[in-house]
């Protein structure tokens, strides 16, 4: 309980206006923040001596389908010092979806952001190597978006030409 309060207090002190929501569903502490401060927040969480969230475990996104702010990018970060994990959520309100990368702060975010880009088409600005992770280069669609059918789109993965 103390850890939770400490983190909430520290983040509130620094980024009070930018926090949209703090939730605590099933004991998972989660902050929803504005898009512009994500890099500053990441830097703060990592470098603040009492927090030290030095490990980024996961970056992913949620496609809400019909909502106005369609995509939410989700970060899971862990602190070895506090032995605690928090979640940061950022609603994206621009079209096409884009957000600043956190690779410069957490190096492990590199592949996670590539995967998110591959699956949802969210562009991570200033990412060093933003290529497709799983799907082939030149694939036009983003498979985990809700408007992509489960059975795939016919002709979207052309077979190689047969040699005569």
């Amino acid at each position, binding site marked *: 309980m103390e850890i939770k309060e400490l983190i909430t207090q520290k983040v509130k002190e620094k980024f009070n206006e930018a926090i949209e929501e703090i939730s605590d*569903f099933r004991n*998972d502490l989660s902050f929803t923040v504005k898009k512009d401060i994500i890099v500053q927040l990441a830097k703060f969480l990592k470098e603040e001596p009492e927090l030290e969230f030095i*490990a*980024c475990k*996961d970056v992913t996104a949620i496609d809400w389908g019909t909502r106005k702010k369609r995509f939410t990018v989700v970060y899971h970060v862990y602190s070895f010092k506090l032995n605690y994990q928090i979640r940061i959520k950022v609603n994206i309100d621009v079209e096409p979806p884009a957000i600043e990368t956190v690779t410069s702060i957490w*190096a492990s975010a590199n*592949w996670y952001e590539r995967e998110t880009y591959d699956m949802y088409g969210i562009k991570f600005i200033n990412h060093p190597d933003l290529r497709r992770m799983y799907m082939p280069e030149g694939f036009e669609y983003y*498979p*985990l978006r809700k408007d*992509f059918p489960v059975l795939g789109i016919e002709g979207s993965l052309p077979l190689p030409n047969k040699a005569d």
Partner: protein
Amino acid sequence: MDRISQIYNDEKLLKKLHEDVNLTIEDVLEHEMVINMGPQHPATHGVLRLVLRLDGETVLGVVPELGYLHRGYEKMAENMSYIEYIPHTDRLDYTATMCNNVGYVLAVEKLIGIEAPKRAQYIRMIVAELSRIAAHLIAIGTFAMDVGAVTMVMWTFREREKIQNIFDRLAGARFTTSYTRIGGVSEDMDDEAIVLTKKFLNEFDDALMDMDKLMLSNRIFIDRLEGIGILSKEDAIALGVTGPNLRASGVEYDVRRAAPYLFYNEIDFNIPTQTEGDCLARYFLRGDEVRESVKILNQCLDKMPQGEIRANDPKTVLSQKAEIYTKMEELIHDFMIINYGINPPAGDIYFSVENPKGELGFYIVSNGTGQPWKLKIHSPSFCNLQVLSQLCKGAMISDVVAIVGSLDPVMGEADK
């Protein structure tokens, strides 16, 4: 033959040939070469493709290409109920199916807010640890085979076979177990399964000793691994390495200790660590972990209580067949669960367990319906592969095989 000698004797023709080829000996020695390793390479543990840039035998850079086994399990999860998804978790890390089953149902239970009975949790611990031993045996065996010690894989598979027999007795399948259920496990652990497990544990210590003797007196094996692919503590944390690879670099982080799930807080076990961070350390660490698993298993078998194996909560947990046939409420809820799924409250949770490869996490977003709105798998093999290009930089080309083997990726999990 005549034609070739004719060309070499004819100055005009020779000059033309050189112009065409435009390549000299100096060119060949000076320039770098790009070669493709995989996806059909036996040492890449599945369908991992590596594009290597070489200068002679030294690796200048590696670009891993993933996605050859991408089956879209995250997409499929959004279109099936929570119960239907259990068999698909088998196919993630197919060397440790039970661990995946346990991890997934624990995540769903956290989302719903229920807990399995104590006996079921102990059974889950037992199968997870057995599965961990099996997975580490494959890891050690194939790793040794990759660097040339072929006997080892026979010995480890012989021991693993006994674990598969226990799973066969428990779940009715050796490989694709799908053993756990939301709120419990599918079948009780009967006396025969317990006897099989105890017999396996009694014999296993000697077998492990034999394997150690075989490998550690092998000078070639040690020389090929020592000081290869060194991963520092800082890099391991920064690049998101998990599991045995993280602990081999000196970080004492294990989900079983950091955030105890099941009844790991009642069990006495150590978290082995190594400080070197090279391939040999990663090999030793897996052996140490297997020994700890044996310790955990012995304690679990002693402490396992009698009782129910599935929570008595018909609204969220499938009831036993006898109850469905005789009780009205159970019948109604069984019908509802099968047709509409379990409806957990809207919200999102992250839950992770310690798998043989590292931390397997599930991030589930629910909107209150029977199907998850989103299910993200945080797969340890994927995280561990990210460090590959850094480890291989500057290594010899034959070390690439050793480094990939020591990281122990399973592509079913890395590609999802």
